[in-house]
């Protein structure tokens, strides 16, 4: 058994691909048309053979409610690791990304949370 893919639910796959690649700097890995939607994954530019992140179309109403409650409470759907959180925070901020948590110390780590514009909060983590 191998963990190859994990996912974030997104309200619009094309918009999500734009945000996750052009703003975050991830790279598209797989795109397979599946009727109305597609199997669409991105990977880290630094780890192109690493775990793929599926930008999964959010089409199931009860899940939408769950996602909205998480979002409103500021709870991140996923967390990505960075080497220098202040640098990444400033870079994303200058590209217009909205943060609900600025870089904040949490014991041996620093955390920040931003809005992915597709319905989720995403957390950045730097282990000190």
């Amino acid at each position, binding site marked *: 058994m191998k963990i190859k893919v994990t996912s974030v639910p997104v309200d619009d796959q094309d918009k999500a691909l734009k945000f996750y690649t052009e703003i975050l700097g991830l790279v598209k890995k797989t795109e397979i048309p599946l009727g109305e939607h597609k199997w669409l994954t991105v990977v880290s530019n630094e780890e192109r*053979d690493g775990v793929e992140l599926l930008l999964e179309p959010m089409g199931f109403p009860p899940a939408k409610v769950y996602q909205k409650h998480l979002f*409103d*409470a*500021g*709870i*991140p759907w996923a967390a990505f690791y960075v080497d220098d959180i202040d640098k990444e925070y400033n870079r994303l901020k200058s590209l217009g990304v909205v943060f*609900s*948590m600025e870089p*904040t*110390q*949490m*014991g*041996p780590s620093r*955390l920040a*949370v931003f809005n992915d514009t597709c319905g989720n*909060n995403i957390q950045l983590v730097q*282990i*000190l």
Partner: protein
Amino acid sequence: MNHYNRRIQELNKQLYGKDYLTQQLIKGKHFIDKHFGAGIDLDKISREAHLSKFHFMRLFKATYGRTPYQYLIELRMEKAKELLKRGLPVSEVCILVGFESIPSFTRRFKKITGATPAHFQRLKRKSNFG
């Protein structure tokens, strides 16, 4: 302030109230990050953190979820994978990441990645052509 940010602040106070200890611990970890390829041991690392060996080990495990030794091995293995992908010979990688013998390096590498260093290297080189 939203729910999550409030919880993070509460937890931080509750779990990491003694900021100087966290700072000492981080210092010890940075020492491992910098010197993982050399012969470092718990004595040297805990001295760097100004903590007793036992105290350092217990705090490290509670904070990072692994012992300092496990963390050191993880770092060495990550570096080994990177060097093997770049095509360096196994014998050279073994020394560069701080192991003294190829058999102990191979055993440890296999335990963590599931493949021997040579096999791992073959797999990676093959996938580069794909």
